[in-house]
């Protein structure tokens, strides 16, 4: 872990919310920059190096989703989008456009911190080849999955699916992305395959498939392999 403070850019137009985020993040040891408009956010990103961006999707001057590719052009910072509850479609579009994760307003500090932690951990491990969490262990290099040190046999598709989630462990992966990675570009709408295979995976890996510990469902968005 580098000794520099992690720099977070918060692009949020609501001043009080922005203030609150700043206070909270500072309290957790992050260095915070703020911008109240998309334009200001882009300028900030060009001038300064930031590690993480908290992007509100409801900005007054630009569509948040459009902003994402431009932010990524200028910076390697990972992006978490913050959206209102009714902005389902925008949320998914943002994730598909390159955002790493999302938060839904109103969110608790705990949720925010959890998301940040996951993203920061990823920065350090460039390529994830090993996932280890409690009883579940996934070795992507050797294609080995074990539960409580006992090997679990997965079909090729099941493994591919798990691998896609593990590569982004802790972060949400959208349905579209999973479908594309596992089944190919032409199957993006065949969500029923995904449901069935996730069911099979839960069945093989979870103690209680109905209340999974590792393979978490994000309804309407995608799935997340838990990192805690």
């Amino acid at each position, binding site marked *: 872990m580098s000794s520099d403070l992690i720099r977070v850019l918060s692009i949020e137009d609501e001043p009080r919310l922005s203030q609150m985020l700043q206070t909270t993040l500072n309290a957790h040891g992050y260095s915070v920059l703020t911008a109240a408009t998309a334009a200001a956010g882009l300028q900030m990103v060009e001038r300064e190096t930031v590690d993480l961006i908290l992007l509100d999707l409801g900005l007054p001057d630009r569509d948040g989703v459009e902003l994402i590719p431009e932010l990524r052009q200028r910076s390697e910072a990972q992006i978490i989008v913050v959206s209102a509850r009714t902005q*389902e479609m925008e949320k998914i579009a943002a994730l598909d456009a390159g955002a790493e994760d999302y938060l839904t307003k109103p969110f608790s500090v705990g949720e925010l911190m959890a998301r940040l932690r996951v993203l920061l951990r990823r920065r350090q491990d460039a390529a994830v080849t090993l996932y280890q969490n409690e009883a579940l262990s996934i070795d992507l290099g050797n294609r080995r999955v074990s539960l409580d040190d006992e090997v679990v046999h997965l079909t090729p598709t099941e493994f591919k699916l798990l691998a896609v989630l593990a590569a982004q462990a802790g972060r949400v992966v959208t349905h579209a992305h999973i479908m594309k990675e596992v089944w190919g570009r032409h199957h993006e709408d065949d969500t029923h395959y995904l449901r069935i295979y996730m069911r099979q995976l839960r*069945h093989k890996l979870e103690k209680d498939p109905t209340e999974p510990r590792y393979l*978490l469902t*994000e309804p309407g968005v995608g799935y997340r392999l838990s990192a805690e």
Partner: protein
Amino acid sequence: MAYGFSIGVIGLASLIAWAVQNYFSLVNIVMIFVLGVVCVAFFTGRGPSVLASLLASLSFGMIYVPPRFILTAEESQYLLTLSVMMGLSLLISGLTARWREKALEAASKQREQATLYRYTRELAAEPRPAQMAELIATRLADTWGGEVVLYQPGDGGKLAPVSAEAHEAVDGTRVGQVWQDSQWRGLDDSAGCVCAPLVGVAGAVAVAAFVEPDRERLRQGRELLEAMLTSGALALERARYGEEAEAARMHVEAERLRNSLLSAVSHDLRTPLAIIVGASSSLVEETAVLTPEARGQMTRVVYDEANRMRELVENLLDMARLESGPVTLNREWQAIEEIAGVVAKQMRPRIGARELKLAVPHDLPLLRFDSALIERVLVNLVENAAKYTLEGSRIVVSAQDGETELRVCVSDNGPGLGVATERVFNKFWRANPEGNTAGVGLGLSICRSIIEAHGGRIWAENRPEGGASFCFSLPREAGDNPGTLPTEAL
């Protein structure tokens, strides 16, 4: 053809007479011919009957009256026979012709009646004005042939054709004139359209333009036509009044809801706000005086009440969204156990010391529904169960596969419902309106809107072992459940 019949019958009579001539006298043989003539007169009109009389006389005179096979002028007494036969045949054919005419007339009248009955019945059964106008135009065209275009005043009072294409052959000015003075036009012309007014109780309601009409037919059926036009006018008037009454009723209903909403919201938002202001003012102004525990408690109170307000606002916004128009569902293949699992995880911290158990088989068929909305339904149902049961109660979310539907229930072992198992789903319905339970009474109503938008049902019942059960069903479409895939090798 009738003439052929005539010839045939008389020919037959001649043959019969020839066959029996040795057994009967002439007087009786003439009767056979009379019978033949009467037969023809009964079944045909005047022309063939006259022909029959002539043929019969000729035949009888030539064949039977001596000298046989020759027609002589001296048989003047047989002129009497001929005259009598002619007279008889004319009389009888005249009678039968009139009888037949009357019968045809009666049948035609009966058909007209039937048309009119059917038409008025159809009008009575159609409540919507646009469809009614189309019906009128169609039936008029069916009955009188050709095409009929109905004109009604549109927005701004201008006459406009009811169906999309205004017929070019219709003379707009003529239609306008008919509208003005409610008089027929065009019936006496030789070309162009015939325009007739539909006049109701309060004046002209519409104008019917008959394009390239059969004028003769219109004239002959004038009575029925007038009856249909009047019925049509009255029906259109009725429909319009019906619509106005419905609009007024909805307006009143909307008022009522808005008032309920205002009173409910003002109470249920003010209470948590009062607490928040109180607790936070204490934190702001009296920090020094408060013990850490007290400070912690105040902060906790602010958090809890703020969450309560958030839930209320979310319910209100959901309700507004669901009510503001047709619900657009984002239907995707879903596994119900995933949604149930997410809800369970989300709700456990929020239901205090109550137990939440899932009884959802993990191999239920996949169904197409909107996951965000169904998640909301489950959240609301669990929240509701928690609200009306004591600490320590048990809440169970279960799912079952029906033949044509998927059934999901949220059950508890609390006090159960009163008698109002239906009304609980109404907006703003509260079990205990004056009580301390927070909430505006929208949660269940939102559930119903969502389930009904999916084509399902939602209901509440008391469990025989005590407690309440709130269940909903989601219909399975045909071709549902690609629940299994070909097995892969490991």
